[in-house]
C-alpha cells in the first residue's frame, strides 16, 4: 500500500484511479482476472478474447492438466504473436484427444507428424515459413514428457543446438499416459506406473533415475528456458510471453497433473500442481543462455507428503502402519535440495 497519502481527499474517488493506486488484495495477482485488476494484470485466460487454441469437445479425461496447460500456453502465445502462431504436436494424449477424425479441437494451424520428431518438424516449419517470407508467423512445438525427454530427445537437442526459431513446450505429466501410464524418464522416484509397479521391496519407480530436461536445455545455452505450472497461470503466461519475444530456440517445461495416471481426483488437478510447486518438488524458474535469472518463491511451503498423499501412484508410501518414512524422507530431501538450489524460500535466497 502507498503511504504518501494521508487524510481525506475531497470528492468521490475515481474507481480507475483507485485501481491503479492500491493493489487488489482480495485476490492479489493470483486469480486469473477480476474487474479491479489492471487489464494487463489479468491473464489471457480471463479474457473472452482469448484464442481458445483448443476449443470444447476434445476428448481429454475429466480434469486433464495437459488440455489446460496447452490452451494456457497457446493462447498466451497467440496473444503475444498477434494471432500468428503455428503449432506442431508430437504424438501423445494431447494429439489424440484433440484430433480424432472427423473433428479437431484446434483453432490454430496445427501439424502432427510422429512421436519423436516434433522439434525437427517445427524446425522445418520455421525454415519453410522463413523461406516463404512469413517471418511474423511464430512456431510452437509441443509434446508430452515421453516425446520430449525420451523419444524426441535427439531431435529436441538438435533443435536447441541449432538455435532454431522454435518455442518448444513440454507438458510434463510424468509418464506415458497415452499408452496406459508407463514410466518415462520424467517419472519421479517411487511413482507407481504400469512398468514400475508398486511391488517388491522398493515399489514404484527407482530412485536416482530420470533426467532434468530444463537443465539439459540450459546446458545448450539457448536463449530461454523456463519451468511453469498449470497452478500458476500468471507465471505461465508471463513466461510464454517472454519466450515469444525472443528469437531462437526456447524451452518451457510445464507441469500438468494427470488424474488418470496419478490416481488423483479430477478436481484436484490444479491443486496438485500447486502442491508440487509449494513443496519444492517442481521449482519454477527462468534461465537465459544457461544461467538461472529468476525463480518463483514458494508462498506457502508444504511438506512433500501433502503433495504425495492424494495421489494413488504414491499410495504404497502411506500404507497404514507401514508408512515408508525412509523414502518419504528421500523425496523430501529432493524438495529441500531444489529449495536450496534455486533459493525457493526467503530463507534460501538464490
Amino acid at each position, binding site marked *: 500500500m502507498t503511504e504518501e497519502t494521508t487524510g481525506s481527499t475531497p470528492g468521490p*474517488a475515481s474507481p480507475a484511479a*483507485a485501481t491503479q493506486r492500491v493493489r487488489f*488484495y482480495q485476490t*492479489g495477482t493470483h486469480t486469473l482476472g477480476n474487474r479491479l485488476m489492471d487489464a494487463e494484470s489479468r491473464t489471457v485466460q480471463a479474457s473472452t478474447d482469448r484464442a481458445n487454441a483448443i476449443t470444447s469437445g*476434445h476428448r481429454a479425461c475429466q480434469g486433464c492438466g495437459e*488440455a489446460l496447460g496447452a490452451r494456457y500456453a497457446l493462447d498466451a502465445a497467440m496473444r503475444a504473436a498477434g494471432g500468428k502462431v503455428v503449432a506442431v504436436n508430437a504424438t501423445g494424449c494431447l494429439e489424440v484427444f484433440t484430433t480424432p477424425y472427423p*473433428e479437431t479441437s484446434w483453432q*490454430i494451424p496445427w501439424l502432427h507428424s510422429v512421436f519423436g520428431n516434433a522439434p525437427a518438424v517445427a524446425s522445418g516449419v520455421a525454415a519453410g515459413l522463413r523461406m516463404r517470407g512469413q517471418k511474423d508467423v511464430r512456431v510452437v512445438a509441443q509434446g508430452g514428457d515421453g516425446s520430449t525427454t525420451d523419444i524426441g530427445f535427439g531431435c529436441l537437442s538438435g533443435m536447441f543446438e541449432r538455435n532454431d526459431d522454435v518455442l518448444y513446450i513440454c507438458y510434463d505429466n510424468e509418464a506415458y499416459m497415452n499408452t496406459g501410464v508407463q514410466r518415462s524418464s520424467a517419472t519421479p522416484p517411487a511413482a507407481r506406473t504400469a512398468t514400475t509397479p508398486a511391488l517388491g521391496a522398493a515399489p514404484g519407480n527407482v530412485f536416482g533415475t530420470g533426467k532434468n530436461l530444463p537443465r539439459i536445455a540450459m546446458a545448450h545455452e539457448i536463449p530461454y528456458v523456463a519451468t511453469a505450472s498449470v497452478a500458476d497461470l500468471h507465471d505461465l503466461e508471463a513466461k510464454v510471453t517472454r519466450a515469444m519475444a525472443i528469437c531462437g530456440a526456447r524451452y518451457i517445461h510445464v507441469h500438468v497433473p494427470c488424474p488418470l495416471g496419478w490416481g488423483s481426483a479430477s478436481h484436484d488437478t490444479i491443486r496438485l500442481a500447486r502442491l508440487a510447486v509449494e513443496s519444492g518438488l517442481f521449482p519454477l524458474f527462468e534461465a537465459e543462455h544457461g544461467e538461472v535469472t529468476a525463480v518463483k518463491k514458494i508462498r506457502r511451503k508444504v511438506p512433500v507428503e501433502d503433495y504425495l498423499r492424494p495421489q494413488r501412484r504414491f499410495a504404497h508410501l502411506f500404507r497404514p502402519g507401514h508408512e515408508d518414512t525412509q523414502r518419504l524422507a528421500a523425496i523430501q530431501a529432493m524438495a529441500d535440495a531444489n529449495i536450496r538450489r534455486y533459493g525457493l524460500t526467503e530463507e534460501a535466497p538464490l
Partner: protein
Amino acid sequence: MTGTLPFAITLDPGTSRLNHTGTWRTERPVYLSRMPPCNHACPAGENIQNWLFHAESGDYAAAWAALIAENPLPAVMGRVCYHPCEGACNRGQLDEAVSIHAVERFLGDHALREGLVPRVEVPPSGRRVLVVGAGPSGLSAASHLTRMGHAVTIREAGPLPGGMMRFGIPKYRLPRDILDAEIARILRLGVTLELNTKVTDIDAAFAEGFDAIFTAVGAHLAKRTAIPAHAAGRILDAVTLLAQVELGEAPQLGRRVIVYGGGNTAMDAARTAKRLGAEEAMIVYRRSRDQMPAHAFEVQEAEDEGVLIHWLRTITDIDASTFTVEKMEIDAEGRPQPTGTFETLEADSLVLALGQDVDTGFLARVPGVQIAKDGVIAVDAQMMTGRAGLFAGGDMVPAERTVTVAVGHGKKAARHIDAWLRGTTHVKPPRPALAGFETLNTWYYDDAPQTRQEHLALLRRQTGFEEVTHGLTEDTALYEARRCLSCGNCFECDNCFGVCPDNAVIKLGPGAGFAIDYDYCKGCGICATECPCGAIQMLPETT
C-alpha cells in the same frame, strides 16, 4: 493453394464442438451464493460484503447507499459497534480479519463530509407510526419506516436524541458532531422528533391516530447492590455519571475513584473518571480478566490510559474512603467463590457499573403486554407485543444490549411494522448455507495484514474527551475493503472461466457472472475447487 484438402488427415478448425462432451458428466457444477460469516454474525443484519464490494472499486457513494439500506447510522456504528462480524471474518484464519468497522466508519464519515442523503423511493403510505424513544433502535426504525413511505413521529423523554449513544457512550468514543449529524440526516428524511415528551399512555397514542407504535425506551435504571456502608463517600452509578458528563454536569469524584463492575460501561466510567481528573481510576471486578464482559480492546485501552483493574475482588465493606475487598477464586464451574482473604483500597468515590433495568411502568397497564423475566418486554417473532400494533425493541426486549443490536431491532421492527400496516407478514428470506472457511480456496488471496487505526496520543487521551481512535484515510479504507474475501459469493475473478479444461464456462460480462455450458462440461470439478470464494458447488447429476 490448389485442389481439395486431403481426406480425414486434415480437419477444419474447431470442429470438435460437434462433440458434446457434457454426456460424460456425473456431477454438475452449479453457482451458488453462500451466507458470508460477517453478515451472519451482524446483529444489524448488514450485508457487509455487498457494501465492501462497492468500496473495493472506490465507489463510496454506492457502498454507503448499500450500507444504510440496513443501518442508517454508519458513522456511529463504525465507532461503537463491537463488530462481531470481524470475529467471524474468514480472513481472520488467513491472516487478520478485515477491519470492517473501520471501513464502515470511513463510509459514514465520507457520507457526512460529502452530504450524501438516502433516497426515499416509495410513495407515502398514508400510515402514521409513533416511535417511543430516540435511541439507536428508535432512530433506526424511524429511518427505515420513513423510507418505506410511512409518516413517523419520535417522542423522546429526554432533552436530546440519541439515547445511550449520547448518554451511555463517552464522546471520546463517539464525537457528538458525528452523532448529531447522523441523527439530523434521519430527521431530514421527514421524521418528526418531539423531545422532552415522555409517552405514558399507549392507548392514548393510538387514539391520536398512530397506526402502529414502536417502543424502544432502552434500559436506564442502574442496578444497585447492597454494600454495608458505614460512612459512605460518594456512591453513584455509571449511567448517571456518563449522562451528567454529557449534560455538562460532571460530578466531583475526587482524586481516587473505584468503578465496580466488569462490563464496557465500567470501562467507560473508569476512563471518564480519568478524564475528569481522577489520579487513580480503579476497576474492581469479581471475576477474572477472561470472564470480563467488556471487550478486550476496551480493557486494553483503559489500561493504556492508566486505569488499574483489580480482578477477583468483591467489595464487602465501605468505610469512608476505605474499601474492604475480598479476594475471590474461580471454582470448577467457573463461578467466583469467596476466599476469606481481604484487602483494602482507598478511594474517594464509587461508581457502580452493574447493569441497567428497563423502566416498564408505562406499559404495565397496556392490555396484552407481558413483562418477561428480568423485567423486559416480551415480543413475538415479529417484534410485536401482546398488544396488536405495539412493537418493541432495543434494550427493553430480551437481547444483548448493544447499539448494534438496537439498530438491528429498529430495522427488523420496521419491516414487520410495514408488513403489519400493509396487512401482510414480513417473511425473512431463508438464509443460505454459511460460507465457512473450508469452502474457500485461500491460495488465491494475497497476504495482506490488517490496517491499524491510529490512536490519539496517550496524554491527550488521559486529559480530554477528544476521539481516541482515528479513522482510515481513503487509501487505507480502500486497502482494507479490498482485503474482503467475498466469502461465498462470486466476485468475478474469472478463475472458473480460465481453469476449465473444456472451455465450458461462459463469461456473461461485468456484473452478470458466469454460466456453465453443460453441452461441454465434463464435470471434473476444477472450477469448484479453484473458486476462491466457494461460490460453485458440485451436485450429482440426476439420473
